[in-house]
């Protein structure tokens, strides 16, 4: 029988996180006044020991023993060879994934929630506030705070609070106090409710509430916590990639391709940054952050001659196009829009160290179903984006006849996201369903343009 899981013992767990800021140059974050931020400005919401990590340029940061103890509840996570998926795809590629769905809350999020709770505790903080959308981060932080005896207050956006009762229940089990945002507990919440008592809330209001709740504690014993984007968050997540490296070494492998879904960038960075370190030192690896497609592709667009620009200055070129007037320039910029993405990932993409990939939501769910039916685990919807790219790469390896090693991060399970799968099965989820009327309208622009011949070379 072929080995499926490559395991590390608890003794083999990495003892340090990798901090990529030792190896790359970044523009400093700017404050609202346009000047570089003084780290002290964040002291109202973060403990100083975490602020020090945020700006540190030390390459290796020790993982405290007390954090390792909690990590050991589910870490080291297994590195799994996706043998059934390989067989289903009939690919020569070897596909490995880090299974981060095995943490108590079911995602990679506690990799940073645990150290954040720990550093707050060490700093003398008694209560942490945060915001959450559907509850993944709120449940991870509630779990982490329970481990260190810290109070946790989670402002959950009302619309998700009503839709996802089980996340709220998870938080309650771990002692987290999850309340719907907007709430009456903050002025930001009260203002929003006064404006619209039936508001479903938004992440913007929930963040405002969590920050207000932190800074309005006059005892100074409350701080705020954020689960993505920031440098120290990404650094805590590198435990994923550092473990993966050790596990691959055990079987004499090294990845040719690394793939992860990239929303805020934390799970993707967690897996990839330790390998970026190798790439910066000469290793040849393709590293792909994957996000939802951001601009129209050729799905139903007619094959026409069109200008490549909205103004119509460039020569007519044969292309699949919805009309050069269809999408305004800032949106039609193509590729991924890194709005809300971790600055470290944006920087590495702009330098060409990583190459952004995009998949449609339909491709993502289709991939998720294939993988669930082969590897067994039901993926979180965001993980599905990575899976679509993994399948593409595995098929490419087959076409090229190459035995590539593909490594990806299984960032979480989808057991509390089954409504999204129901929508997929019921056909509610569709790619590009322009009505005929809308299609005709966008094609009108081509009426007087020449039509290209549909040439085939084979």
């Amino acid at each position, binding site marked *: 029988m072929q080995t499926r899981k490559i395991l590390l013992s608890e003794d083999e767990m990495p003892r340090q996180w990798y901090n990529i800021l030792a190896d790359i140059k970044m523009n400093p974050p700017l404050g609202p006044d346009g000047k570089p931020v003084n780290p002290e400005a964040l002291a109202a919401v973060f403990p100083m020991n975490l602020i020090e990590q945020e700006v540190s340029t030390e390459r290796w940061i020790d993982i405290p023993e007390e954090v390792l103890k909690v990590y050991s509840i589910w870490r080291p996570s297994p590195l799994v060879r996706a043998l059934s998926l390989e067989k289903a795809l009939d690919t020569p590629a070897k596909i490995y994934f880090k299974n981060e769905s095995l943490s108590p809350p079911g995602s990679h999020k506690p990799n940073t929630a645990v150290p954040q709770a720990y550093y707050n505790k060490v700093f003398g903080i008694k209560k942490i506030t945060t915001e959450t959308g559907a509850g993944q981060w709120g449940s991870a932080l509630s779990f982490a705070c329970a481990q260190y005896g810290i109070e946790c207050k989670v402002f959950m956006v009302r619309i998700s609070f009503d839709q996802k009762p089980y996340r709220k229940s998870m938080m309650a089990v771990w002692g987290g106090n999850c309340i719907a945002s907007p709430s009456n507990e903050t002025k930001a919440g009260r203002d929003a409710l006064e404006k619209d008592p039936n508001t479903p809330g938004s992440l913007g209001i929930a963040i*405002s509430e969590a920050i207000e709740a932190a800074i309005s504690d006059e005892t100074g014993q409350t701080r705020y916590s954020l689960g993505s984007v920031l440098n120290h968050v990404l650094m805590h997540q590198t435990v994923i990639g550092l473990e993966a490296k050790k596990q691959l070494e055990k079987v004499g492998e090294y990845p040719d391709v690394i793939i992860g879904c990239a929303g805020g960038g934390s799970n993707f960075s967690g897996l990839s940054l330790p390998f970026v370190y190798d790439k910066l030192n000469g290793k040849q690896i393709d590293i792909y952050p994957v996000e939802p497609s951001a601009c129209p592709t050729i799905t139903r667009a007619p094959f026409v001659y069109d200008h490549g620009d909205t103004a119509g200055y460039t020569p007519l070129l044969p292309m699949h196009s919805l009309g050069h007037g269809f999408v305004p320039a800032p949106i039609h910029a193509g590729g991924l829009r890194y709005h809300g993405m971790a600055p470290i990932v944006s920087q590495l993409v702009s330098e060409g160290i990583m190459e952004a990939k995009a998949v449609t939501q339909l491709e993502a769910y289709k991939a998720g179903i294939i993988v669930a039916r082969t590897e067994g685990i039901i993926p979180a919807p965001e993980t599905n984006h990575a899976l679509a790219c993994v399948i593409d790469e595995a098929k490419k390896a087959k076409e090229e006849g190459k035995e590539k090693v593909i490594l990806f991060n299984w960032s979480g399970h989808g057991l509390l996201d089954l409504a999204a799968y129901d929508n997929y099965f019921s056909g509610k989820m569709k790619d590009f369903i322009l009505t005929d009327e809308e299609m005709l*309208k966008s094609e009108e622009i081509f009426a007087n343009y020449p039509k290209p011949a549909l040439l085939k070379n084979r």
Partner: protein
Amino acid sequence: MDTSKDSLERRCPRLGSPVSFRYCMLYGDNSLPCWKIFDCWWEAFDVTTYLKLNLSEDQFNTVVNSKPKPKITSLIELIEQAKKRNS
């Protein structure tokens, strides 16, 4: 306002749960549509034309050109706002 798209649903990548198009239209910053509305809805219908028809030119341009501030910048702004609310 054309309400024919209001009940369309998709998963919000920011929240991680399903939302209606109406939610995306109404609950961005300053009661404008969410800054991700183009990226999220282009797969379903011609959201650009829809917004052009249903927003004023100024509102449309604001949404097209809006992007979230870097996290640290927005955190500092939120801290300042919260301090003002508490003073």
